[in-house]
């Protein structure tokens, strides 16, 4: 059983957030984590995962074309994505620079794939997932840990039901 964390990162900020989410996934016994930049993703990686957490910088307030292309490529294979757990994260250059709308765009793509999407847990406090303006600080790292942990726990719950 494993969670795939996929990201696009130009400056390294989104990658840093991805690593903190991976650390959260690993807190849950029995769930493994695979962390990959979107450039290295094969479609089989997506089909094999029990949960997928996808992240992107905000480009025009939506996901980078690199990540969008990944979703576009699996459109005809949506049945293979059914009932996987999904979640999103994002970074931006400004406090209202599109973090939220980027996460919503990712969650929308996941919903279209038939995935079961979730946001960050109440202790993290956001609405749609974990976002960071620039380099993730201690606060964002903590939220990212919590998001990873939540997705891993949900994957575990789904597999036992």
């Amino acid at each position, binding site marked *: 059983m494993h969670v795939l964390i996929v990201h696009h990162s130009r400056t390294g900020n989104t990658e840093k957030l991805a690593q903190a989410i991976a650390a959260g996934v690993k807190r849950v016994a029995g769930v493994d984590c695979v962390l990959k930049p979107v450039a290295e993703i094969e479609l089989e990686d997506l089909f094999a995962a029990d949960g997928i957490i996808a992240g992107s910088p*905000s480009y025009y*307030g939506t996901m980078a074309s690199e990540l969008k292309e990944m979703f576009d490529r699996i459109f005809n294979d949506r049945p293979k994505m059914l009932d996987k757990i999904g979640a999103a994260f994002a970074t931006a*250059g*400004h*406090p*209202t*620079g*599109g*973090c*939220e*709308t980027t*996460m*919503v765009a990712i969650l929308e793509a996941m919903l279209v794939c038939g995935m079961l999407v979730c946001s960050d847990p109440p202790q993290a*406090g*956001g*609405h*749609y*997932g*974990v*976002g960071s*303006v620039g380099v993730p600080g201690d606060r964002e790292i903590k939220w990212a840990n919590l998001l990873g942990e939540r997705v891993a726990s949900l994957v575990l719950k789904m597999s036992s039901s």
Partner: protein
Amino acid sequence: MHVLVTYHSRTGNTRALAEHIAEGVRSMEGVDCILMPVSEVTIDDVLAADGLIAGSPSYYGTMAAELKRLFDRIISGHRAQTARKVGAAFATSGHPTGGLETTMVSILQAMLVAGLVVTGDPRSAGGHYGVGCAGKPDKHAASWALDHGRQVAELVAQHSNKQKQASR
């Protein structure tokens, strides 16, 4: 020529942001500003304005019902009269990703449906959809709000000059 700045505010944070925006509107010569909580706004107030800047706290990541009700009232029968006014949005929330952006997008969507010509915040403010802040506006948010109000006022002035030229 005037801009109506309207808001819903429970804690006072959205009202504080609205006041900074109003100050920005008033910095433009020839453009007046009316600042009003949405509970006091009538349809005539909206129809009389050349520009509308609406703000709300993020409730479930979208505008508060109080503001939504104003748009719902406009849409039933007044849509033709709101067409081509300039529109913009602002928002507050309790968390940095607590729905600021999606609240502004929900306001801009309503404005687009009502036929307004909408704008985000100017380059100097740097956001994507308008001015937002988590909690009480700090000095950055105050300065972005000022620029945001000013930009809408400038657009209203430009827009009305063009309309005057066109009618000559």
